């Protein structure tokens, strides 16, 4: 290597070292507060809505500058955990309520009860607040949520002559099973279940049948009991796959997006998906493909189902908690909440935002989803300590084996209860 080339390379390294030697910047440079807002928005419209709102805040609040930081759903837990440990967490944190328990109990998040204005507290229903309440404190503002719905091939359904369910008159689980059988034929299935994450899907839908699975005793200890009501949803899926052959076994290990090509290709009449998947369907559906949104089947408890709302939290270490809470309040004013909901193709939690006409149009199934909002409850397990381990080590493999037909209902029950309670007990000593 010549001397000149070595010189260039050394100059490059020195330039890099000197240019990059800056920290995140002083929080209050020039008497102005700077807040970091880490958003997990990822769809084009959603990112745009978030950035526009940050821009509007900055234009109207000269004393408090908010810096938009892009985070990622894929890695948010590890990234936040390290940031908290290192005292470098963003001031305002976007996450999902089922990811908050560890951070809340770990003391990393600020209790928002005294920080939020009455307007915001009153606007969001109590059931949604429960999703972000851990112990006595509230550690996040639940602002967006999505029910699981049935996305259906409208032409197929119309031609078959089956009754089309509505939020007022949904299918029962038994009716759903009968109809999917009726819709099936050689190489065609009434429904395709994408159950890559079988536990949350099963537990959340089981609320409709009165399933509870986690039971908290008077001493506060939680135990798992897989009772008759908990059986309804898993048994339906199991029988559709293994007995009726109205659902293919091949999609059980797939994510929602993986089932869309088969859905568009006329292989499946319906796919149970999160409400926000409509955005992908609008983008990807072939010209002329007629689809519609149907409510998920209802059981003894009607259309009730569990959700883990998206939340906005404030870091406990933030030196400007009040300003951060004011920004959260700004972001979640009814009109702004609607903008965020439309950008993410989800439902807002705020009651005033939910009344916005833009969310009641029949186009793209908005009205059907909005009609379900009042029946959404916190996901059954999100305040149960040890749930992640129970889910990964016990419940996920057990449900996967049950759905694929490798084990029966009794073995499923035994594993969920016996093995599951051993795991939970370790967290409740």
């Amino acid at each position: 290597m010549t001397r000149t080339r070595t010189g260039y390379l050394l100059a490059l390294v020195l330039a890099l070292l000197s240019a990059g030697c800056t920290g995140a910047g002083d929080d209050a440079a020039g008497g102005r507060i700077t807040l970091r807002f880490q958003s997990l928005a990822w769809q084009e419209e959603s990112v745009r809505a978030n950035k526009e709102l940050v821009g509007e805040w900055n234009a109207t609040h000269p004393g408090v500058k908010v810096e938009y930081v892009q985070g990622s759903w894929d890695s948010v837990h590890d990234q936040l955990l390290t940031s908290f440990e290192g005292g470098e967490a963003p001031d305002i944190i976007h996450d999902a309520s089922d990811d908050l328990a560890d951070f809340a109990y770990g003391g990393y998040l600020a209790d928002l009860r005294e920080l939020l204005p009455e307007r915001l507290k009153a606007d969001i229903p109590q059931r949604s607040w429960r999703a972000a309440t851990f112990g006595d404190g509230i550690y996040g503002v639940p602002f967006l949520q999505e029910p699981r719905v049935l996305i259906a091939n409208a032409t197929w359904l119309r031609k078959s002559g089956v009754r089309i369910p509505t939020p007022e008159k949904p299918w029962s689980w038994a009716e759903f099973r009968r109809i999917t059988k009726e819709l099936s034929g050689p190489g065609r299935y009434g429904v395709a279940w994408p159950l890559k994450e079988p536990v949350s899907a099963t537990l959340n839908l089981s609320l409709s049948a009165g399933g509870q699975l986690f039971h908290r005793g008077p001493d506060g200890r939680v135990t798992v009991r897989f009772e008759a009501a908990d059986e309804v949803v898993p048994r339906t899926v199991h029988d559709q796959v293994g007995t009726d052959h109205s659902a293919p076994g091949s999609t059980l290990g797939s994510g929602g997006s993986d089932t869309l090509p088969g859905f568009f290709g006329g292989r499946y009449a319906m796919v149970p998906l999160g409400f926000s998947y409509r955005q992908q369907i609008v983008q990807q559906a072939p010209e002329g493909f007629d689809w519609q949104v149907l409510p998920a089947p209802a059981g003894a408890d009607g259309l009730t189902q569990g959700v883990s709302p998206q939340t906005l939290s404030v870091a406990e270490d933030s030196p400007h908690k009040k300003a951060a809470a004011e920004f959260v309040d700004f972001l979640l004013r009814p009109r702004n909440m609607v903008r965020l909901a439309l950008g993410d193709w989800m439902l807002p939690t705020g009651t005033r935002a939910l009344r916005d006409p833009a969310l009641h149009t029949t186009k793209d199934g908005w009205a059907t989803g909005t009609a379900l909002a009042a029946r959404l409850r916190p996901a059954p397990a999100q305040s149960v300590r040890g749930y992640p381990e129970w889910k990964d080590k016990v419940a996920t493999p057990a449900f996967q084996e049950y759905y694929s037909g490798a084990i029966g209902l009794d073995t499923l029950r035994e594993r969920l209860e016996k093995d599951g309670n051993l795991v939970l007990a370790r967290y409740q000593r």
Partner: protein
Amino acid sequence: MRTSRQARAGQYLALLAYLVFLAFPFLWLVSTAFKSPRELGSLHPTWIPRHPTLDNFRQAFDEQPLLHAALNSLLAALAAALIAVLVATPLAYVMARHRTGLARVATGWVVVSQAFPLVLVIIPLFLVLKNLRLINSLPGLVMVYVVWALPFALWMLVGYVRAVPAELEEAAAVDGAGRVRTLVSVTAPLLAPGLVATGLFAFITAWNEFFFALVLLKTPEKQTLPVVLTHFIGAEGVADLGPLAAAAFLATLPSLVVFAVIQKRITGGMLTGAVKA
């Protein structure tokens, strides 16, 4: 003779199959990057996009600061590669030429250090860098990359140094060359392919690295390409596939270019002409 021809045909077939196996993900990535959303949702995927579009690239650039992130990645990877080679070369020379107990311990430590899981070191590392005020800075990240690449770089270079016959250095000494002159004029040129290969290893490691960059870089203007790529992935693994493929395709290009440019140096025969047969 016939058997030998058949065997050779079998070998070529196996090689072809291996090449197809290796090329498939990349070719599929390229194909996906040029497909429209409707084509991506088709039940019958095609190799050649029916209606090729640049929209995915437009969207990827519109949504995320890809060029800036690529520049950050390039600076971090180049600096890490250069520093790793500069630091590892003299160490490797000492370990290869002086087989003392310390060298053996060092080699053992190098091997063991490769087994450390990232999660084990990330929080202490984060705290150390924070105290040094090197969080959210490319130099901090470069330091981590150098430390992370160093053990393997050292291990690689020790092998290359050992492959240079010590007799050559002795001959140079007999001819009157001093220690430094011998190292610069005799050893270093023969070591060049090894240095290039080691630098390339450090470059690729840093270019592809995700976790450290995710945790250590806070502000958007500092983030590297692998971190920015995850911004195309939503909750429950849902992905904006077209823009993600477009951005990922662009992210693979520098590695390919670097390989294409220097592959001759790696495969060019280390000791050509050095020792007479």
